[in-house]
């Protein structure tokens, strides 16, 4: 019985989306930034992979659409969560601006890919998704640099 009560509590707590608690030190903030970059990277790479696959004729439209729009949702969610954290100091502020720029670019390019796939022009998808290669590289570099 106890197990259930506790897990219910944990569950309720985890299932409602809530902003990540404020980071008091630069170190903590940097940690959160890295986690953010990681999940952003995961979403960007997903879109690239899905786009390449669809362009190569290995995946059909509806599926690709779902994968890409999920990734878009995920990415904007990640960005929203990160923005909700107060940078503790000026260095953190700078860091926030760097990462936020990366996230915004990525989100923009993902959106373009989603529009393309919704229009059903799968063969152009590769070119549309091209800029994401750069975004992925930058996110990866950011992640490495700060962890």
């Amino acid at each position, binding site marked *: 019985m106890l*197990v259930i009560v506790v*897990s219910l509590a944990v569950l309720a707590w985890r299932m409602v989306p809530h902003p990540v608690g404020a980071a008091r030190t630069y170190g903590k903030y940097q940690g959160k930034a890295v986690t953010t970059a*990681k999940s952003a990277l995961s979403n960007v790479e997903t879109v690239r992979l899905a786009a390449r696959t669809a362009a190569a004729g290995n995946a059909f439209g509806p599926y690709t659409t779902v994968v890409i729009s999920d990734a878009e949702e995920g990415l904007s969610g990640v960005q929203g969560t990160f923005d909700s954290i107060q940078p503790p100091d000026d260095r953190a502020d700078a860091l926030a601006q760097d990462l936020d720029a990366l996230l915004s670019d990525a989100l923009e390019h993902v959106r373009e890919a989603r529009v393309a796939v919704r229009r059903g022009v799968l063969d152009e998808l590769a070119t549309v998704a091209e800029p994401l290669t750069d975004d992925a590289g930058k996110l990866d570099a950011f992640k490495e640099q700060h962890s």
Partner: protein
Amino acid sequence: MKKMLQITLGILTAIGGFVDIGDLVANAAVGARFRLGLAWVVLVGVVGIIVYAEMAGRVAAISGRPVFSLVRERLGPGFGLANLVASLFINFLTLSAEIAGVAIALAMVASVHYILLVPFTAVLIWIVVWRLPFERMEQVFGLGGLALLAFMFALVQFGPDWGNVIHQATHPSIAKEENIFTYAYFGIALFGAAMTPYEVFFFSSGAVEERWTRKDLALNRANVYVGFPLGGALSLSIMAIASLVLAPMHIGVDTLPQVALPVAVVSGKIALACAILGIFAATFGAALETGLSAGYCLGQYFGWQWGKYVRPREAARFHVVVIVMVLLGVLVIMTGVDPVKVTEYSIVLSAAALPLTYFPILVVSNDPDYMGDKTNGPVLNFIATLYLGLIVIIALATIPLMIITKAGA
């Protein structure tokens, strides 16, 4: 001949029926995150479900008593009731996750947001529960689940360096950015996905629905000893292909569609279509199993007439429970909770709740009153006791780990 056919069918059904949204998500996510570092857990889990289901199936065949009757008879009405509440709650989480899974599978071919498909899904599920005979139901979705073999196909076509694969699987190591707690947490998730209580509620209740007798013990063994390991192999291939295609690209699995991505990448459209069909059948089948399991648990605890072997009007409360559960599941999913999160919780808590139902089965399968001369042998008892210890430890570790790792975040 007819017997052989029945047994083959049983095995195929068991393979297809083994995998559900928990296995899909857990194996793909773990593969992408830990590569094959946790593959061994799947083996441990499969052996566990084999031991557990074989006992439950044998008890049901010999004594005609399904799991939850035994829970109440051996643990008493008080503890049995607490147990019922816990099991219903976890079963409900799983049902919700499966419903979402079906809707998402449909969304992958319909390109409509899955939330819009949830009510439709629920109606489908209910119609099948209401109308389709038990055996037909089991076979249709079990065999449909075989389409998941697309994952195995993709794995073979990818043609990994098998030596390296084996080495990775047999020399588990924790990646630098992971810690022992997340490793353990996802280990429990995998274990819970492989050894889910509802599978056993359903398996033993199904044995009663199909009127198993001691003549069917061979069928029981075939399902369990052949079907489940092959189902486990299927789970492992989902993990392996994710570790080969997604992990190198730093892709983490946060959604169900991502699970099928490696298949498309490696083997193309047709295979992708199969994978999606498989995901549909597997989650739909599991939605039926969990929905019915809710009715089974309640009906068996209170002694109501339950089951699909009688007309719905003759098992009224049973069918009402199933309907209500499916509706509640729909509500939960419609709130927009992340289905993958729901899945993770359902399997982790499943692992935590295992001792509650495993223990009575273990005792009764040794009780001559119920089993006559078909009680457990010493070897089985030895293994079964080890597993009792294991699942008790897991049950104790789960909640703390959940909190430490922020549920694997």
